């Protein structure tokens, strides 16, 4: 087998894996701190992609430059979601919050469908579009390369923020024991709200990058949401580093496994890996 093809498979797997990682980091943050599985996570991704597309189509702002606005917007949407959907059901059975996010997911998708229609949209004239770096027979698509680097950087910043900052300590304390954190003077509701905002901002950044090389339509989030649930479970619920590494692993398995076993089985391979890991380590690869 041609070595360049194998190297290309590894590179392609890594590039898409980094994007998966950032999507999953947002999800794992919310789960780790609040024990809530956000079913609307994929729809947040879709909102980010649509926002980037609309800014490009209507205002001519390239997705690379609209990224900070998209991240801010999704942070705000996260806060709003917490205030209007999650907070009223906190303290009740976890299933209620899960169903609330499920309802929110359907609501968001249908609102977008109603106002923007079902059409597929593609950004093909952005600053990065169609550009690539080629060397030694290998090709790196610039939109994917920039997205991958961006996703790694943001994941690292989030990791640093959680592990080093004062808010990060409060967040970890809340995740470990909410009641004790409250007794220590931590405003847990504020922590929850900011966590939801941060999780949404992460997926917003991923959406802002993804729109450079992926099509947009109201159901686009579903394709990624299922994979990100697997990644979160694989990496260990609530573990940012775990989600990051599991995202890369899924990207590599999908690409390399898909090539050698057959592309139609690439998701089967991901789910087989997931089942093996879960049966051996129920808390995921890096869970505790």
């Amino acid at each position, binding site marked *: 087998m041609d070595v360049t093809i194998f190297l290309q498979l590894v590179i392609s797997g890594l590039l898409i894996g980094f994007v998966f990682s950032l999507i999953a980091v947002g999800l794992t943050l919310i789960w780790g701190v609040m024990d809530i599985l956000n079913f609307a996570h994929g729809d947040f991704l879709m909102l980010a992609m649509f926002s980037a597309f609309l800014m490009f189509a209507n205002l001519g702002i390239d997705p690379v430059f609209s990224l900070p606005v998209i991240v801010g917007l999704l942070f705000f949407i996260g806060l709003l979601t917490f205030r209007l959907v999650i907070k009223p059901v906190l303290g009740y059975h976890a299933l209620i919050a899960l169903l609330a996010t499920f309802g929110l997911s359907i609501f968001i998708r249908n609102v977008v*469908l109603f106002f923007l229609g079902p059409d597929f949209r593609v950004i093909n004239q952005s600053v990065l579009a*169609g550009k690539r770096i080629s060397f030694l027979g290998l090709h790196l698509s610039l939109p994917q390369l920039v997205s991958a680097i961006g996703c790694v950087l943001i994941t690292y910043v989030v990791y640093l923020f959680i592990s080093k900052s004062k808010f990060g300590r409060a967040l970890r304390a809340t995740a470990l024991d909410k009641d004790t954190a409250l007794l220590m003077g931590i405003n847990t509701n504020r922590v929850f709200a900011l966590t939801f905002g941060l999780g949404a901002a992460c997926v917003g950044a991923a959406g802002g990058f993804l729109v450079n090389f992926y099509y947009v339509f109201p159901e686009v989030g579903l394709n990624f949401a299922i994979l990100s649930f697997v990644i979160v479970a694989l990496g260990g619920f609530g573990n940012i580093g775990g989600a990051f590494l599991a995202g890369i692993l899924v990207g590599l398995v999908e690409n390399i496994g898909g090539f050698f076993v057959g*592309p139609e089985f690439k998701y089967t391979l991901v789910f087989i890996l997931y089942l093996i890991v879960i049966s051996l380590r129920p808390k995921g690869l890096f869970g505790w």
Partner: protein
Amino acid sequence: MKKSIILALFLILLLGISSAVNAAEEVEVALLYPLSGPLTEAGKRMKSVYEVAAEVINGSYDIQGVPYAKTEGIPGLNGAKITLKFYDTQGSPEVGKAETERILQEGTAKLIIGAYQSAVSKPTSFVAERHKFPFLCAVSSSAALTERGLKYFFRVAPTDFHDSRMFFNFLDDMRKQGKKVENVAIVYEKTEFGVHAMKEVKKRVDESKGVYQVVADVPYAFKSTDVNAEVLKIKAAKPDVIIHATLFSEMTLFAKTYENLGVKSNANLSFCGGYQNPKFASQLKDTVEGYMGSCTFAEDFIRKKAQLKTINDMYKAKTDMNLDGIAMEGFTTLFVAVDAFSRAKSTDPESVTKALRTTELVIATLPGKGVKFDENGQNIWIDSTMSQIQKGEYKVVWPNEWATTAMAWPMRP
């Protein structure tokens, strides 16, 4: 008191009579399409084209070569108007089946038209068959649909058989001109549509007795998040020609990934599906320059049949897009239904089915003579052409009798 009871009874009677009159003046057709879910965009386009077709049938339009355009309503039923009722399959065979049952239970529709995907047309038409109810299929292309021996199922569109035969006639022609086309890669989604399309391609390859070889056989999962592994498998095989059976979402991913990973082939041919969606050409522009595919209608056809401009304009006013092959197949299908009602002079399912079996509708909307069904319900008067995307527009480039523009070969010099 008595007076008011009599008045109420009189009003109820009047209402009954008036609805009976309405029933006689209107013929309802049920349409099964994906109006939500991942194929909503395609479903909505189909909805628009049927609304245009109903407008032409119910109104009076001077469109040469299109029967029932000039007359108002269904001539054989004293000008009864066609009404459309849409049912959402959500792109799911199970939902499609349930909706078909609902149509039959409601009992107001006189014929069913549907569904978009072959995988949905298959079970829904079985339900109609069980109830001995006529089912007209407009666009599903799996050849297997008309190989099931159904008596109430009829299809207007060409099948994968027709398209694959056209592809290989085209490739034979290219070979004669000394162009390299022998090594073929086949790429298809693992659904009824993709699997059957490629079965037909493999049959044509076998029939060529070694002239053509499948150097890469690449099925993939519908709703993929990326297609790098698929494209690298194709790249490793170095094909001369790539043949796709792919819907719009993945087709855009494939096109972008071919470009990103530097895959080059002499030709990239597509069955109906993503390639035919006008947005494929208009949104991806240079990325898809030179792509080719089967085509039963493109705006370019108007250069050969100027009278079709009226229909294209009506559709464009609704959707802001030009008609494509799939839309025109839908348009024609409603005329087949009207033709059957008109000749049957009845809406009774058996009479309509009998009329459908003897259809010989000469209509200028599609390549070929029009619509005539064989004993399996497949239209045998339909033909297909090869179009190519050139500067964001679909141009008919083969065969010569339909070609309006010279073909670009190889697809990217």
